[in-house]
């Protein structure tokens, strides 16, 4: 039998080799995973997080990739459910062989996925706030861009004291951060002279919280701290209004979404305070996220995922090797220190290739991390609901 390769095809193949090598397309891709809450309680954020991760990956690949290799991003849906998140992590680690997983949302999901990551030397970049996450024995394989519960709750309590709260009652969904969050809030509030500090932890999968609200109102609070996700916040706002509560209400911005405010009459939601870690508004990286999503005020989690992908690419670029261990060893070398400040990962990769040191400043903040993996500082956005929309009070 003679040759089965036509001469023209063989010639075309031979001519293509230098081109493929130059563009990096011939090199094996670097597998990267994202586990985002495309559905479930975090469904308001997951799709935009995934969009940002995909857009940035495409841009990096278009500029030649990392170490001449394209990034192959695989986005999985956590359904905001730890069991599903673990299945997704197994698939990404065991099948795709990813070097890192980015964008895990909800502390329960991150906590469930974390052991799989550190056991397989896969870096995990999360947007979850529970203090317990970075206290896990992760050996440096967790980086989080979300301020931890201690930092968030302390700032929240200062805000409530500033607004004159004297008697505060907490209604908290059962989450890994519920107890830490309330304890820190209570500590700062008590230090500021507040009293009547009680709390109830509820099961967020219920369809009514009348009994819990009854118990909360028995304590005669002037302020309710609603430590909730969006679906249960909607029910709590409705039922506290029905129960005749006229005091102040305070919650997290990820729960007080525009959709929740629109789902209820303005009379029910007006005056609801909420807060969130503020992205690095005005920074070039923040502008890039604005451009990708086509909105003026991208959510903090999409900004954080932009930083996750950037940090992965830059750490690999610095190490010269694409692996979880390489990211682990190099992520702080490109995110903090005396190197040249960069906000664009493509520009950062060029600087690294020319042997320069860099300090990445991201869309979510300065991206400087403690040895445990927590961010060192960030700003917070405080807002109030007015006529079914959130209005910014201040950023500090």
């Amino acid at each position, binding site marked *: 039998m003679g040759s089965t390769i036509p001469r023209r095809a063989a010639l075309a193949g031979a001519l293509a080799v230098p081109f493929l090598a130059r563009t990096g397309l011939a090199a094996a891709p670097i597998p990267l995973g994202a586990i985002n809450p495309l559905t479930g309680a975090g469904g308001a954020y997951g799709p935009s997080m995934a969009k940002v991760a995909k857009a940035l990956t495409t841009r990096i690949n278009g500029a030649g990739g990392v170490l001449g290799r394209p990034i192959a991003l695989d986005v999985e849906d956590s359904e905001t459910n730890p069991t599903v998140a673990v299945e997704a992590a197994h698939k990404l680690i065991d099948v795709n062989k990813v070097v890192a997983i980015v964008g895990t949302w909800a502390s329960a999901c991150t906590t469930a996925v974390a052991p799989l990551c550190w056991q397989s030397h896969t870096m995990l970049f999360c947007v979850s706030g529970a203090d317990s996450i970075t206290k896990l024995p992760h050996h440096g394989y967790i980086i989080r861009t979300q301020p931890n519960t201690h930092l968030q709750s302390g700032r929240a309590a200062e805000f409530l004291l500033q607004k004159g709260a004297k008697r505060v009652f907490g209604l908290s969904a059962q989450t890994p951060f519920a107890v830490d969050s309330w304890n820190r809030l209570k500590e700062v509030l008590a230090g500021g002279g507040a009293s009547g500090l009680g709390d109830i932890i*509820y099961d967020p999968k219920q369809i009514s919280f009348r009994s819990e609200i009854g118990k909360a109102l028995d304590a005669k609070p002037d302020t309710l701290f609603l430590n909730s996700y969006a679906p249960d916040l909607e029910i709590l706002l409705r039922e506290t209004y029905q129960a005749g509560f006229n005091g102040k209400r305070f919650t997290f911005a990820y729960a007080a979404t525009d*959709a929740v405010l629109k789902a209820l009459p303005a009379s029910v939601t007006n005056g609801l305070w909420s807060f969130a870690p503020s992205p690095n508004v005005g920074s070039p990286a923040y502008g890039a996220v604005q451009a990708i999503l086509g909105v003026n005020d991208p959510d903090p989690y999409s900004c954080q995922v932009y930083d996750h992908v950037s940090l992965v690419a830059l750490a690999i670029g610095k190490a010269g090797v694409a692996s979880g261990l390489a990211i682990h060893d190099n992520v702080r070398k490109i995110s903090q220190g005396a190197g040249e400040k960069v906000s664009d990962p493509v520009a950062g990769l060029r600087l690294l290739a020319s042997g320069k040191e860099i300090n990445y400043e991201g869309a979510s903040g300065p991206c400087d991390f403690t040895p445990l993996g927590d961010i060192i500082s960030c700003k917070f956005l405080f807002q109030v609901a007015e006529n079914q929309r959130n209005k910014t009070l201040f950023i500090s």
Partner: protein
Amino acid sequence: MIDAFLQALVNGALAGAVLALPALGFNTVYAVLRFPNFAIASLATVGAYAGWVANAVFAWPAASSLVVAFVVAGAAGAASDALALRKLRPLGAITAAIGSVALDLLLQNAIRFGFGNNPRGYDLPVFRNWQVAGIGIGPQEAEDAGLALVAMAALFLLLRFTRIGKTMRAVADNAPLAESKGIDPVRVAWVANFVGFGLAGIGGMLVALDTSLDPLTGFRVLLSIFAAAVVGGLGSIPGALAGAFVVGIGEELSTLVLAPTYRTAIGFLAILLVLSLRPRGLLGERAY
């Protein structure tokens, strides 16, 4: 303490009345087709969204929107059963039940594809509670319970006095005998699915009126529906009613002695106790 007890009792009764409708639907389908159809969770959500379209998009009042919820959820339930589950039923109840779980996920994601993840709100005002002798009663919840009672009464009248109701009872009692008497089991299956899932659709909309409407609205009450059906007696229509009130009131009363976090466990506890002490449920399997 007495006030707290009475308040929990009222809250539980109102929750039980709303829960009773999907539980009745679940048992209606089980009685005729002899398998637990877990797609009821998403079909309740289908009803809730259909009612939302009628109310928020076309500005229909709540009562007429409930009719839309019934018709759309009933039609979706009957059609999805015919397309996805009919061929599985001869392979056994377990196979059909597992198929219904898959169908539930499919429907849930179809809803998500069509309406997105964000919660939706009905175009209805929210009222402050009435205070009756120190007990708070929500006007919306009271109206929901009233509407649920009307729907339940209509189901009982259908089953007791109409020809199709009698054929459904005949198939539920002894399917081979009913078929030998000329009753078409396929037609009865269509009707049972339409009525059962229609009730679930009304229940789904009533739950959404009280809480929030999103693709997981029905899923959140699935355990309570199943608990009510098992406690009352799988396949029993009055049993579903009794089971819904037992579960609804039991869950609320438990908060007087247990932290609210454990409230959902009451549903599991009720199933465990009933299956251990009275496996056929409070009112037996086929009581009407």
